[in-house]
Structure formats: structure tokens, C-alpha cells
């Protein structure tokens, strides 16, 4: 079951919400949420539900040990917990990748395991690791109730593809949540915006990307390669930020305030800033739990940086292009760090925008091509290495037939809506007008998205695969 699915939006979610609100107190309300969270998970991946339950039970138990009075047991519990959680990722996500590479390196032919990828494992393992470390660092007390802990691990708004919500973010709201009419309005609005981003923009952009990149990449013109990567960057943005909007909106209906995951990433003027605006909860996870891990001497700054970007890449998928993609961004962040913020600020703003947009565009191209040979052809194509013309007919046709879609996609990826809203609200009577416009826009988005969901071919959220 997906968020952008009429069954979820018009059946599952309303029933869950109604039952939630008719429940008389917080305990029953949590029970309703837990039931629907487990149902949601089982619906998506019944076979992997026992694994989720076992991981939750083990981490719950270890969390109690970590906060216990025996230091040796606490340390052992932390090590066991982290090894177990990372082990889940290694076994279920990377075992085939590691075996293939091991075979290639050694010339052996060990059987490559075919293990199904458990739904949301990349996200819930990170939620578990952050919990254990935060308990160890005394940032939060360990959860005393297993049902509440299981709710944290399985909470359906963030199970499949984040945000990487930490226990510390919502520990108070796990117990007491006040829900006002504003919360419900904000929640529904956010769901409408996220749905629109996904169904109207991301899915239509996906069609263009497929047209350009799915075929013979070596025959694409130079500008065609750049154009394809730009469209793919926009598609990824609308897909994943749309999903995040929906997750944040759904959580808000039940009184949870999830951390933001995107903040108009394409307005960035440095690559470091891009990562402060793109998949924010993943970036801050790596910053807080991995960047400071290397503890020896002065090289640790760059070792930490390498670890973060290697892991960011590998986390996105068991394929070398993701590792290259992570290290590629890490390299630019390292360069920016070596140059220094003060010197960067002296570079004219248009130059900084051009630099970041070029780096990001190439980055998304690297992200797209999981096949190394095709990735090579794409990179060569960007710089005319395939001997193709600068400008081709495919590009011209695509630009002409998608002009409105592309204009809208570029426009809404910049903070235009908040700017217009702010200006409008500053005028007399603007607050009321802004409220009416916003509501009308949200209703339109819901209607159009619903029609598209029913009639068009649906695309699953890309980040659910990571």
C-alpha cells in the first residue's frame, strides 16, 4: 500500500483517523495507531513483519540494558544492538552486492544470495540505531512500554521511506498529543501538496526521464544528456519531497510533528548547503552518529567526512554508482571546506548558483545509472565524448511537448509559493485571501491528483526502494 493510492487515501487513512478520534484516551489512540501501523506494514510486506517485530523487541530490551546500572552490560548491549541493526542492513540489503564483488575480486563463484528486501528496513534500522545511541548518551531515557516502542518503530507515516524520525523528536508526543483544528487543516493541506508533487509532477517527469534515459544512452545529444539529468533531478525532488510532505501531513493528523526533510534544495549556493536542504533527516543522522566517530588525531575530520559520504552513497542502494555518487558529493564538500566559507562568499552569487546546479545535475545522472557501462556512456555524453551533436531532435521534441510541465516543475522547486503568500498576507485583507487561495489550491490538487491516480499508470515512490 502506498500513500499515493486511492485505497490508502480514501479508505485506510479515513477509517484509521475516525477510529483514532472516537477512542476516548491516549492509550486507546496509541493502540489504534499501532494496529493500523502493523496492518499497513503487513499489507506491504507480510513476510517481513516478524523481522520488524523481532528487531523492535531486541532493541527495546537492549535499550533498557544500556540505561541500566552495570557499565559492562550497557556497553555490550550497545555494541550488540548496533551490530544487529547494521547486520540487518548488511544481510537483507547488501549480501548479494558483497558476494558479487567478492566473487569478482577473488575469481570464486560463491552462490549469490537472493534475499527479498524487507519493506522500510533502511529507515527503521536507522531509527533503532539513533534510539540506542541517544539512550547511551543520556539524551533520552529508555522507553518503558514495549507497545509504545513498537509504535515508534512501526509508525506508518514514516515506515516505508522516512523521514528518519528519532525517538527524541517525538518521545513526548508518544505520550501526550493535543490535536487542534489547525493541526487537521495543516495535515490535510500538507497531504494535498505532497500528493500533487508526486502524482502530477514527479510521475509526469518520470515519463520524460524514461523517454530519454531508458533507451540507448550513447546516441543522446550533449544537451540531451544534461536535460535528462535536470529532469531526473526535478523528478527525484518531487517524488521524495512529495512523499515527505505526505508523511509529515499524515503524522500531523495524529498530533505528531515530524522534522522537515526538504527546504527548497535547489536554491543552494554551495554543495554543503544543498545537503542541509535535501533529505535533511538523513544528513543530520550521519552528522550526529557517524561524522564524529573517528577518534584518532587530526586526520579524523576527513576520515569522518569520507565515512559519511561513503555511507550516504551505499545507503541509497547496493550498487557502485551510489557509492560513487556519495563520494562525488563528499569531494565537493571537502573542496568547499578547504577553500573556506569566507573565500567562497567572495565568489559572485550567479557563479555559485551555476557551480552548484552543474554539480547537482551531474550527481543525479550518476544516481540514475546503476549500470556502470551506461553510466560511463552518460558521463562521456555530457561532454561530447560519444561523438554526438550538441543538440538533437529528441531534445527539441521533448522540450516543445513538455514546456508547461517543465516550467511548473522549475517554478515550484523554488520558494515562489511562500514568497507570493507572504506578499499577499502583508496587504489589507490579505490573510483571508491567502487562506481562501490556499484552500482552493489544495482542493484542486486533491481532485486533480485523484483523477490522475485513478486513470494514469501509478509509479511507486522511488525512495521506498532504498
Amino acid at each position, binding site marked *: 500500500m502506498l500513500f499515493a493510492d486511492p485505497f490508502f487515501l480514501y479508505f485506510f487513512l479515513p477509517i484509521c483517523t475516525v477510529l483514532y478520534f472516537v477512542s476516548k484516551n491516549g492509550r486507546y489512540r496509541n493502540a489504534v495507531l499501532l494496529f493500523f501501523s502493523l496492518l499497513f506494514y503487513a499489507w506491504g510486506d507480510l513476510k517481513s513483519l516478524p523481522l520488524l517485530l523481532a528487531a523492535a523487541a531486541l532493541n527495546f530490551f537492549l535499550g533498557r540494558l544500556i540505561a541500566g546500572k552495570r557499565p559492562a552490560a550497557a556497553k555490550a548491549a550497545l555494541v550488540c544492538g548496533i551490530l544487529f541493526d547494521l547486520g540487518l542492513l548488511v544481510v537483507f540489503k547488501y549480501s548479494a552486492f558483497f558476494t558479487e564483488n567478492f566473487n569478482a575480486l577473488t575469481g570464486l563463484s560463491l552462490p549469490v544470495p537472493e534475499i527479498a528486501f524487507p519493506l522500510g528496513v533502511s529507515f527503521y534500522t536507522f531509527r533503532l540505531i539513533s534510539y540506542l545511541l541517544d539512550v547511551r548518551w543520556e*539524551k533520552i531515557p529508555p522507553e518503558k512500554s514495549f507497545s509504545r516502542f513498537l509504535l515508534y518503530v512501526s509508525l506508518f507515516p514514516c515506515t516505508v521511506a522516512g523521514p528518519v524520525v528519532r525517538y527524541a523528536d517525538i518521545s513526548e508526543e508518544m505520550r501526550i498529543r493535543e490535536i487542534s483544528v489547525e493541526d487537521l487543516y495543516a495535515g490535510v493541506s500538507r497531504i494535498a501538496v505532497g500528493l500533487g508533487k508526486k502524482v502530477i509532477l514527479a510521475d509526469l517527469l518520470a515519463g520524460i526521464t524514461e523517454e530519454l534515459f531508458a533507451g540507448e544512452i550513447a546516441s543522446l545529444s550533449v544537451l540531451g544528456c544534461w536535460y535528462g539529468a535536470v529532469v531526473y533531478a526535478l523528478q527525484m525532488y518531487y517524488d521524495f519531497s512529495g512523499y515527505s510532505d505526505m508523511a509529515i501531513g499524515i503524522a500531523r493528523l495524529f498530533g505528531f510533528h515530524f522534522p522537515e526533510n526538504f527546504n527548497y534544495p535547489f536554491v543552494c549556493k554551495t554543495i554543503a548547503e544543498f545537503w542541509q536542504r535535501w533529505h535533511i533527516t538523513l544528513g543530520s543522522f550521519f552528522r550526529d552518529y557517524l561524522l564524529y566517530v573517528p577518534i584518532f588525531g587530526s586526520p579524523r575530520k576527513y576520515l569522518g567526512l569520507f565515512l559519511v559520504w561513503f555511507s550516504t552513497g551505499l545507503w541509497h542502494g547496493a550498487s557502485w554508482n551510489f557509492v560513487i555518487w556519495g563520494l562525488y558529493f563528499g569531494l565537493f564538500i571537502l573542496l568547499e571546506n578547504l577553500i573556506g566559507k569566507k573565500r567562497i562568499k567572495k565568489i559572485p552569487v550567479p557563479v555559485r548558483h551555476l557551480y552548484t546546479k552543474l554539480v547537482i545535475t551531474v550527481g543525479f545522472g550518476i544516481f540514475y545509472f546503476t549500470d556502470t557501462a551506461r553510466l560511463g556512456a552518460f558521463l562521456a555524453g555530457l561532454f561530447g565524448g560519444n561523438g554526438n551533436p550538441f543538440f538533437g531532435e529528441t531534445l527539441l521534441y521533448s522540450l516543445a511537448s513538455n514546456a508547461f510541465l517543465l516550467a511548473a516543475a522549475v517554478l515550484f522547486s523554488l520558494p515562489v509559493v511562500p514568497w507570493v503568500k507572504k506578499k499577499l498576507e502583508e496587504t489589507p485583507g490579505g490573510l483571508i485571501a491567502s487562506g481562501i487561495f490556499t484552500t482552493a489550491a489544495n482542493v484542486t490538487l486533491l481532485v486533480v491528483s485523484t483523477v490522475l491516480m485513478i486513470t494514469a499508470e501509478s509509479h511507486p515512490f522511488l525512495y521506498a526502494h532504498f
Partner: protein
Amino acid sequence: MTKEAVYVALNKIFSDIFDEPITLFPETTAKDIDGWDSLEHINIIHSVERRFGMKFKMGEISTMKCVGEMVDIILARATKG
């Protein structure tokens, strides 16, 4: 070692790192100083550890909320004055 002496030493460390005069207060956070990001944080931690002959714990490095918290840890653990 007094609290005031720790602040004097920290002001010098921060001023050297950020290349401009900086005066810290207990409530100063990374948001108050332009350029204090996660990588610069490693430089700060490293310099502070060397200056005071002490080590921060892993958890402290990412959970310290303000300079005041850092000073309390330094006062409890410093081996160099």
C-alpha cells in the same frame, strides 16, 4: 581553573579558527556564529581537547547544545590550565 579562564582560552581558540574576534557566552550556540558547521565543529573539538588536555565523549560531541555545556565539561575534565 576558573570559569573565566576557560572562556578566555575558548575565545582565543574560536577567534583563531574563525579568523575574527569572537566573544563567547554560556548561551552561545552554533547558530550564533557564522561558519560553525559540523566540520568546523571537529576543528573546535580537536583544538579544545589539545588546549585543555582532555577528551570529549562521542555522545557529548553531537549533543552539546551551547558553549555553557562545553565549559562545564572542560571544567570537570581539564588537565591543563
